[in-house]
């Protein structure tokens, strides 16, 4: 366990230092501006939710932060270090992990192997082709721990592709956190779930991000207001408000632009 990146926010001793810092980030697809200059400061150790109507650019923002798409303009810092336009794997190695809105796992591998693949790099095994994975005690322990944490212990031999939707979502989160990253980006962790599944998912998210920085995109307001320390509202590629849940609730601009349209 010693080599795992521990996710304590108090590491630097300063709770207010920023985990992710976006400075006037812009993204165009062809002529279309999707992100029109977003500046955002996510504090270490907080649970931060990004909300906004469909097409606001929330997932695009995640894709920019995690290195999936290159930026058109602006800079992104992770823990004070510039990560603008780095390859996704390099950003991941610096301690940022993300999940996907559409389940993105390794379908033809077992649950156990899915998690183990996500553990290997963080334990320093890199591209080794001379070490037997079954002999790597730390990897096995860490994998077993995660599989138990996401509640798939008795399903660990199953192929990921044949799991139920809720189980796949849990595995998606498991693969995301397995590497022990300090900063976790979750893209709609409860989308498409029934009420009881959603409650389980919220508990899981709360549990696995204990002591870490969490940024999540979420549509379900009960989840958002139940989990988040701070909320950012994104509308048409621009931040219209950032603040504590209570502040967001009272913000008139937000109500007009977003919450109003959701209340049916």
């Amino acid at each position: 366990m010693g080599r795992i990146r521990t996710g304590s926010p108090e590491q630097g001793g300063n709770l207010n230092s920023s985990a992710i810092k976006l400075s006037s980030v812009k993204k165009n697809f062809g002529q279309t501006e999707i992100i029109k200059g977003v500046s955002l400061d996510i504090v270490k150790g907080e649970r931060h939710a990004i909300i906004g109507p469909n097409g606001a650019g929330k997932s695009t923002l995640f894709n920019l932060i995690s290195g999936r798409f290159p930026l058109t303009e602006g800079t992104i810092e992770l823990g004070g270090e510039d990560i603008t336009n780095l390859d996704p794997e390099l950003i991941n190695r610096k301690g940022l992990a993300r999940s996907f809105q559409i389940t993105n796992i390794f379908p033809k591998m077992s649950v156990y192997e899915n998690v183990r693949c996500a553990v290997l790099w963080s334990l320093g095994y890199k591209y080794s082709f001379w070490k037997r994975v079954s002999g790597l005690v730390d990897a096995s322990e860490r994998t077993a721990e995660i599989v138990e944490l996401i509640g798939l212990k008795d399903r660990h031999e199953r192929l990921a592709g044949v799991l139920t939707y809720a189980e796949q979502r849990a595995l998606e989160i498991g693969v995301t956190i397995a590497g022990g990253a300090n900063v976790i980006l979750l893209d709609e962790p409860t989308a498409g779930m029934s009420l009881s599944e959603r409650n389980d998912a919220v508990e899981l998210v709360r549990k696995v991000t204990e002591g870490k920085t969490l940024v999540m995109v979420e549509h379900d307001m009960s989840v958002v207001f139940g989990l988040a320390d701070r909320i950012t509202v994104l509308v048409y590629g621009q931040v219209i408000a950032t603040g504590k849940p209570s502040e967001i609730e009272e913000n008139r601009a937000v109500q007009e632009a977003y919450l109003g349209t959701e209340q049916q």
Partner: protein
Amino acid sequence: MMNFTKNNVGWVVLVVVFLVLPHVFTQSFALSLMTQMGIAIIFALSYNMLLGQVGLLSFGHAVYYGLGAFFTAHLINWIAAGVIWFPITLVPIFGGLCGMFFGFIFGIVTTRRPGTPFAMISLGIAEMVAASALMFTAFFGGEAGIDTNRTAGGAMLGISYGPQIQVYYLVVAWCIVSIVGMYAITRTPLGRMANAVRDNPERAKFVGYNPTRVRWMTMTLAGFFAGLAGSLYIINYEIVTFETLGILESGRVVLMAFIGGIGHFWGPIIGAVLVTFLQSALSNYTEAWLLYFGLLFLVIIMFSPGGIAGLIAKHDPVMKAGLLKRLLPSYMIVSATGAVMLLGFISIIEMIYHVESAISGNDPMALFGVMINPSTLNPWLVILLMFAVGTALFVKATRRVGQVWDELGPDLQSKGVI
């Protein structure tokens, strides 16, 4: 074979089979056939490191095989000329390193993108290398190729590699080393990530791995084993021509891996044995063997994309549940009707071949031990009827198999094996 991947019994059985075979099949053609099978196994497994493990469909794998063979040929000639000293037993390592070197070099440009672009560029490189081989005659020997003498190094510890049996044991030794080595690689971090990259290259990036790097390293390792197989090829045949690194040879290894089954580690072993056997056995009996071969390949792709290994593995849960006997009756009917259909089909093809060939077109021919005269109408009627009836019954029988499988489903689930 079933638990080959699960425990060590499989390995022991494999070694014993290799050692006992030459005492069972003592004829010289059998020995040379088994030697070829051993080489083919290494080659097919190394191919499956690409297609099965990391998802790269290559149409140019014979490049590494052939280059390994050519470089080894020159090495052996140097040994013969006394330029350097090197034991023949260890020559395959040299061939492997050559294959590895070219895998590394070509890997730089080819592994950036999987899928169709990789397939195309591998084909392009294969064509380029094959065409270059005809151009640089000093190294590749032009149409005639390069020949060597494997006994040139002299005998060591009484092993001269003069008799075929010694070559067989050399191939077997390297075959076992390679199988163990390639299996072991699948169980390492790189091997596991190769599977991950095959399944979902994008997600692999988000757990810290560079998919291009994983593909590239896997290709380099696959090049090693292909080159090693090429080395054994030249030791066995003592001659290598440009055809060994050509498209047809590359195509042959695709067939072996796919017919055997790319989804299981041991699939290509079955494919290599079967294809090598068919190639040498069928080509003695019929001119149409390539056609049968191609059709077998098409049938496998259309109806059992997991290959023979996939078919076998499908029965694993049934075996565990002890329900195999419920499948057997329907399988027997399928085999019987299938045999009638095949007999009819093969007869038609053979008769066409016979009639079309200019030399013997009007003479009677022997078909499965029966003398018939295809220039008359009656045999055609009989055969066509046989084929039609056989096909109709076969289709019906396969439907029945499907039904039995459907009926098995709930029982398998209740026994908890799937």
